[in-house]
């Protein structure tokens, strides 16, 4: 088991509001790490810090260090564009570009110059769509608009889009919250299949989902990391009472 990303003593602020308070956590390769906790507990903020998506938020600031393969992601020589290519992200609401399915997947490789020529690009698009479990459904309509797909298909298209730039880490911010149970089941299946290749961090409000898909679980409360460990331990034998209350549905 290797540590892919590690956060040490990370605090995050939006203006005067402290959203994260001295959080230290590791994200391991070939593992799914679930970030759980009530709304406003800072789990999404942590996720967005991992590929510096919060840079664009006015008034947001961060303390502490976050490392990717031992390299500080806030270092001067760290190119944020390259960081986001290595640490891909899937969002809460499916957000395909208003372009064709093909162009949605091909966009990342194109701007990063990852594929030479049409043939190579075709191959990348097909591989990514296959890994996202979407290929068989869309292979005959790659020129259709991505926005014309169903919600679940759109989310898998967004996953394919993230996979196409060959990332090492995939961050998922409540990827199923806008989907129906069947589409959710497919995404969960997909997360299980992707685990072997990537380090995955997923924010979820769904306890069963966290228990089903993850190997590690981190429980956040009021900006603090309350408990972090193997998913089986957290769900069967939580140490903190707040964790126990949350996962048993006492509040949340």
């Amino acid at each position, binding site marked *: 088991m290797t540590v892919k990303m590690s956060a040490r003593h990370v605090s995050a602020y939006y203006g005067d509001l402290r959203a994260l308070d001295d959080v230290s956590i590791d994200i391991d390769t070939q593992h799914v790490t679930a970030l759980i906790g009530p709304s406003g507990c800072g789990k999404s903020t942590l996720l967005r810090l991992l590929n510096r*998506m919060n840079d*664009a938020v006015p008034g947001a600031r961060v303390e502490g260090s976050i490392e990717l393969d031992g390299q500080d992601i806030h270092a001067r020589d760290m190119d944020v*564009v390259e960081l*986001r290519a290595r640490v891909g992200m899937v969002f809460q609401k499916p957000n395909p570009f208003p372009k064709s399915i093909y162009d949605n997947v091909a*966009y990342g490789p194109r701007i990063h110059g990852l594929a030479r020529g049409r043939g190579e690009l075709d191959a990348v698009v097909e591989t990514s769509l296959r890994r996202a479990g979407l290929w068989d459904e869309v292979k005959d309509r790659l020129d259709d608009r991505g926005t014309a797909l169903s919600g679940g298909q759109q989310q898998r298209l*967004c996953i394919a889009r993230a996979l196409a730039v060959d990332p090492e880490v995939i961050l998922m911010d409540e990827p199923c919250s806008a989907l129906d149970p069947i589409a959710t089941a497919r995404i969960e299946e997909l997360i299980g299949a992707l685990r072997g290749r990537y380090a995955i961090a997923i924010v979820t409000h769904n306890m069963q989902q966290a228990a089903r898909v993850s190997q590690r679980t981190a429980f956040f409360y009021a900006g603090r990391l309350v408990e972090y460990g193997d998913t089986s331990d957290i769900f069967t034998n939580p140490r903190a009472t707040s964790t126990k209350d949350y996962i048993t549905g006492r509040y949340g």
Partner: protein
Amino acid sequence: MIALACLAFLVATIAVDGVTGFVRTTVALPVDLTHLPVDARTLTGRSANLALTGAGLERSVDAAATRAFGSDGPTLLGDGAWLTVRDAVRRHPDLLARPFVIHVPVTSAIDIAYKHGTGSGPVLARMQQLKPALDSEFDRDFFTSSDATDPTRAGIWGALKGSLLTIAVTLLLATPIGVAAAVYLEEFARPSRWTGLIEVSINNLAAVPSIIFGLLGLALFLGTLGMPRSAPLVGGLTLALMTLPVIVITARGAIRQVPPSLREAAMGVGASPVQLVFHHVLPLAAPGILTGAIIGGARALGETAPLLLIGMRAFIAAAPDGLTRPATALPVQIFLWSDQVDGGFVENTSAAIIVLLLLLLVLNGGAVYWRARAERRS
């Protein structure tokens, strides 16, 4: 309801007065040019007009009018009547060899009397005598000639061309600069006292009366920079200053409409801020930006006051053949004609207003069409 009634009244008035402006009254005039010392075979190229004029064509036409209608004959014809004969002869040089009958425009008093039955007693009486020879025809020259002292010869081509050149300069300058400013303010500028000041200035500039921009153009472009007076270039620059804030404001609105989820999607796959703007934000905002540019352009097209101040109100009898040549613009031409005493100009004014309104209708309709099309596609 009241607004609709007013609009209907406006359109009806303009249409009733204006439609006859596109028609002109002609009189059948027997002409005999066989004595004219011109060789039909030499009537080629640029010198042809000069040859016919030099040979006394105008006098021959006057003589023909005297023979046909009596001693006041020449005064019944429009100033441009002999030019109609000249152009006919140039098209068919064989007319020099035999007597022929040609329809030439009459003077504007007879024209009005024939169309509307109004005018002084003697004019009406003279019109009645001529009536069998009078006829109406579509006034093609109205679209091909420029301003003239005689309303039957005056046309809008010069003003229209001046307007189009001016608007071209305006949009070519204001659109790129305005869009660039909007992109900078929305995407790159960090909110600060400085950008706040810029924002307030832009909003205030959009509300400044247009004649103030005319003064600015006069002082800056003509006074300080010494640019030529009455030129479409200067008119375009001045109107660009006026249109710029409108375009910046609409473009910023369009850029703000781009959903944040799309920005995140692009950033999430590692698009740089510049790639984000050019690959995602601008294509999505394009319909809104385009609509803003067209509406700004339409406003500039109808603008008169700033152009008056920079000298685009001169009497200019030839269409401008360059950006720095003296020109006038369609709304200014309307203003100038509305000032004229001669009754013939009333019709010209209305006809020019119809052309201007149609032009604006086409532009605004285009904006609506583009917007609808772009919305269907996304």
